């Protein structure tokens, strides 16, 4: 074991290759600005989905408040960017957004994470609504009018960079001892406690890490799409993210990435079907859930699948 394995080199190469291919197509203008926006949305959705997957898929804490964390990151980053419209302002804004969001995650998580299942879901939903109402009514965030003319400093490179960082960090985390502690809470909280795992600590930790990356996703959103308003971060936004996570497979980061790509493309594709777009979207949700209730990937990862092909035998299920 070690950092430099065949697998890791392969992963690194494919990441670099993906970036290079897009970059080349971009310079040749085969991928237009419009495609770049779609790619940016994909990256943001990947960040939000993997961070929510950490909370809901891996730690088993059902959260319907992810949009709340996203909004905190978005507003923090936007306010910093409006004051310092530079590259440093952007990076500081992204990190500050993540940290602010993580702090709120800890403050909210400590009392609410003792709740279970749907009760936690409804409490987190309430929490996100409270955050939204606060943004709607305070001066500094511009109230309902929101914040406009946020300088666009984020570009495709930064989107890709942060998406990769999020996936890698969260993947590393779940393959580490604290990450396994989180997973054990999903599996059986009482058994986990009996094995010496402080379930409150790890639930809050997972919540905070998830919130941190959601904040980063929000910050990227703010610095790419010029404009923020509180109603962007309503309950439907949290649902959108949950849909990506469940569709991809709870507990599969690969699934979240794949579903984020597919659903973003689908949403963009449906823009032209004005009147029926939401009907088609809703139908697809129902159909996919009925025929693939465990999501596209279940709990497996791309590396498992590659391994399976390599070994020439299936994983025992």
């Amino acid at each position, binding site marked *: *074991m*070690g*950092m430099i394995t065949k697998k890791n080199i392969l992963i690194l190469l494919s990441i670099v290759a993906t970036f290079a291919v897009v970059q080349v197509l971009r310079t040749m203008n085969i991928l237009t600005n419009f495609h770049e926006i779609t790619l940016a949305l994909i990256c943001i959705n990947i960040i939000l989905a993997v961070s929510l997957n950490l909370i809901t898929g891996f730690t088993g804490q059902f959260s319907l408040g992810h949009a709340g964390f996203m909004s905190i990151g978005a507003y923090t980053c936007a306010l910093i960017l409006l004051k310092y419209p530079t590259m440093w302002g952007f990076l500081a804004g992204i990190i500050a957004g993540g940290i602010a969001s993580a702090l709120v995650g800890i403050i909210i998580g400590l009392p609410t994470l003792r709740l279970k299942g749907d009760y936690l879901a409804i409490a987190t939903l309430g929490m996100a609504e409270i955050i939204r109402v606060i943004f709607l009514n305070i001066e500094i965030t511009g109230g309902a009018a929101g914040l406009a003319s946020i300088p666009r400093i984020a570009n495709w490179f930064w989107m890709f960079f942060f998406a990769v960082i999020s996936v890698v*960090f969260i993947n*590393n*985390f779940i*393959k*580490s*001892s*604290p*990450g*396994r*502690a989180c*997973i*054990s809470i999903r*599996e*059986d909280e*009482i*058994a*986990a*406690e*009996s*094995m*010496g*795992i*402080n*379930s409150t600590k790890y639930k809050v*930790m997972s919540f905070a890490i998830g919130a941190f990356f959601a904040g980063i996703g929000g910050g990227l959103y703010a610095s790419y799409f010029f404009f923020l308003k509180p109603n962007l971060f309503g309950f439907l936004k949290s649902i959108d993210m949950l849909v990506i996570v469940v569709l991809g497979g709870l507990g599969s980061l690969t699934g979240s990435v794949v579903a984020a790509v597919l659903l973003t493309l689908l949403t963009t594709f449906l823009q032209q079907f004005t009147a029926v777009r939401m009907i088609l979207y809703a139908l697809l949700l129902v159909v996919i859930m009925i025929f693939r209730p465990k999501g596209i990937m279940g*709990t497996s990862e791309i590396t498992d699948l590659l391994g399976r092909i390599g070994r020439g035998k299936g994983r*025992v*299920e």
Partner: protein
Amino acid sequence: MALLSIEKLTKSFGGLTAVSNVDILIDKGELIGLIGPNGAGKTTVFNLITGVYAPSYGTIELEVDGKLVSLAKKKPYRVTKLGIARTFQNIRLFKDLSVLDNVRIAMHQRVGYGMPAALTHFGRYFSEEKRLVAEAEALLDVFKLTEKKDELAKNLPYGEQRHLEIVRAMATKPRLLLLDEPAAGMNPNETAALTAMIAKLRHDYDLTILLIEHDMSLVMKICERIYVLDYGVVISEGAPDKIRSDSRVIEAYLGEDVSAPQDGEA
């Protein structure tokens, strides 16, 4: 000084008193049995010791570095940290995780890297993970589970799941191991093997063991002392021979033949 001393332990749920005035003393190195008919409150005692329930009354104290530490209001993970591990009557493995992960999770408190290494896999991540796997495999070897370390826990046969529960508990490096019906559902051959295994663990890891068991053959064979619980009260205590002939115990088991160890209740 006793390793574990329980005094006047009482727990009531609403109007029902599940455990009442229980005194138990366990010395270091002992192997103690806790028996009693169904619903006598045995598992409740385990839950009280491990912090799943808080006692209504009474004290539970554990010897730690020569001092007695109260376990009464400690959360389960703290109790585990102090050196008590347990298995569950109705197996509570992490079903969808691999055998190896089940064991590694229990080693969590002894992992020597922090959050930065966890997120980046820099620093001591790889050396520590290597150590964890080696230690886990050593423990799995005891129950011949090393071969199956990559299988999901739920895919193991029943008996092996019970073994894995014990391995997992051992991985927390306990001084006191609480086993809740480890032989439940096993055939006599498996039970015999398990008996040998428990003895070996106790010897190799310098363990103190408290055991709940319905299988009298196992209890009578390996326990040095036995506590008998009925309706939440300790009705008898002593060496197996004494218990076997105690009329109150026989009465509690009402008609059940406790005098003949070989065909005890399974």
